[in-house]
């Protein structure tokens, strides 16, 4: 059974067709890349899958369950969580406070327990803090735990964005440009960490313009243009696909020569 399955997913904004009948199936344990020119509908697809937008037509299945019209917090509860372009963070909080907040779904604390903080609650809060710190560590930013995240450098913010997503204990994460604006060293580090996340059993779907990062990380790549799926296959197949070259990669490119 596919982890995530889109059936004829369509989204219209007025007369504009942002996503046009896209079928997509992501298997468990995969790292799937989603590429396409700006405005081709990649982020709209993310917003549809994660429940921030409702599709005009088509259905979305996650682990066999229809999640088409669920609000975002319930999609997250089912184990499908997304990150945002340009990294969304609770900018006034420290890195550790961010991840502690992101553990919301798995605190095991009701409102009354959160208010009347008895010994059990305090113990649980400490466990949550430990888990949050371990997540920061897994993204390589444990030493930045007490920095206000709004003041952190871009690379660390991106890493924290992923740590926040992982705190929800997802089965699948959608990463929207996880290495946008990073230098090659940072890109490689984040991509390696994304691979490790997958190795721990989390399926990954990522949108990225850095073709080298996509080609070295993803096992399979889907390319969309004007809301239509134009190609799907291994990175090698995508690189040599004439429609992809015409629409996105450009002629005579060596973006794929890795």
């Amino acid at each position, binding site marked *: 059974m596919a982890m995530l399955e889109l059936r004829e997913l369509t989204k219209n904004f007025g007369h504009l067709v942002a996503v046009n009948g896209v079928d997509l199936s992501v298997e468990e344990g995969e790292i799937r890349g989603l590429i396409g020119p700006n405005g081709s509908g990649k982020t709209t697809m993310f917003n549809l899958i994660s429940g921030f937008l409702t599709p005009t037509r088509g259905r979305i299945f996650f682990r066999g369950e229809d999640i088409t019209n669920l609000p975002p*917090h319930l999609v997250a509860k089912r184990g499908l969580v997304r990150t945002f372009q340009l990294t969304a963070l609770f900018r006034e909080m420290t890195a550790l406070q961010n991840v502690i907040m992101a553990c919301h779904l798995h605190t095991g604390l009701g409102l009354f327990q959160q208010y009347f903080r008895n010994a059990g609650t305090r113990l649980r809060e400490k466990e949550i803090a430990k888990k949050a710190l371990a997540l920061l*560590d897994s993204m390589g930013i444990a030493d930045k735990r007490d920095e206000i995240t709004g003041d952190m450098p871009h690379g660390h913010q991106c890493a924290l964005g992923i740590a926040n997503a992982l705190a929800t204990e997802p089965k699948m994460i959608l990463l929207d440009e996880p290495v946008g604006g990073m230098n090659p060293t940072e890109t490689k580090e984040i991509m390696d960490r994304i691979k490790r996340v997958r190795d721990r059993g989390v399926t990954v779907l990522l949108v990225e313009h850095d073709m080298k990062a996509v080609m070295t990380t993803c096992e399979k790549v889907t390319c969309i243009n004007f809301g239509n799926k134009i190609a799907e296959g291994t990175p090698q197949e995508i690189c040599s696909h004439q429609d992809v070259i015409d629409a996105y990669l450009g002629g005579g490119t060596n973006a794929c020569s890795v």
Partner: protein
Amino acid sequence: MRRAGHGVGLVILAVILGGLPFVVTKYQVDILITLLINVILVVSFRLITTTGRWSLAHIPMMGAGAYATALMTGTLGIPFWVSLPLSGLVAALVALVMSYPLARTKGFAFFIASFAAGEALRLCWTRFKIPFGGHKGLTDISIPVLVPGVPALDFSKAIPYYFLALAVTIACLALMYRLDRSRIGDTWKAIESHDDLAKSLGINITRYNMLAFVIGSAFAGIAGVMQAHRLWAVVPAQYGFVTTLYLLVWVVFGGTHTFFGAVIGVVILTILRELLMPLFEWVPMIFGTIIILTLIFLPSGLEGLPERLSWLRKMKIRISFGEVPEVQPERIKQGAASPAE
């Protein structure tokens, strides 16, 4: 060291609060009572603002508490001590009904929608003569009685009522402070910080917004109860937009980042207003000027002052969150553990 400093500060504050009513005039004691009630009002208002929503229904919610206690103690003969929490509950219930549509709006839409909802509530009081008494309101509000015949507990007098109001204010502030520092308070601040991120992390933001609105309104209701039993009258005009404007002025002047910012705002502006009493006609104009100057030079209110003054810049005031438990990183063992460590 710091703890000792806090202790000394608390003792000084207690002496001031305890001694003040005995050294000022009777009129000024009533000003102090109003100030205490307004402190509950601004702190509960600030509680709702932590989700990023400025409720213009807050003063009508205060009215809901006042009307509830007026009807309970006056018409039904329920004792004050029962009607105090019950009236807070009534305000909470009214807020709960309103919050179903309101919690789904944000920013300017919430501002306007909450104003409309509050005004609708206020108009109910003027239109329905039974049981709300129309424009004239309700007047037969009972005086709180604890033990009949003890003069120190005769709450019809200003000084005993001051201490009653002080006790209620401290209790309300303690309850709200605890909430502010709990995970619930942090979740509210997270929603204000980035509501889409909060949603994507599985936080049901509608539910949390409703919770903040309901709890904040309940405390506004309590403030209304305390006001009604001092004024012995409830009229709809008290809960009109002018009162709301004063509330906004206090909160904008004080700031909403920290728990006590707005409290300092209301205290300073109340004192200022009393000092300006000889210039009575000028007060609205002076307050207007203060607000404009605050918004230009201190957009985050008095809390932004340390940042403005170079010699105080180190104590820049940020939004305060609950405490993070002390944790040490546990090295994740990779492969064989090295015996050297």
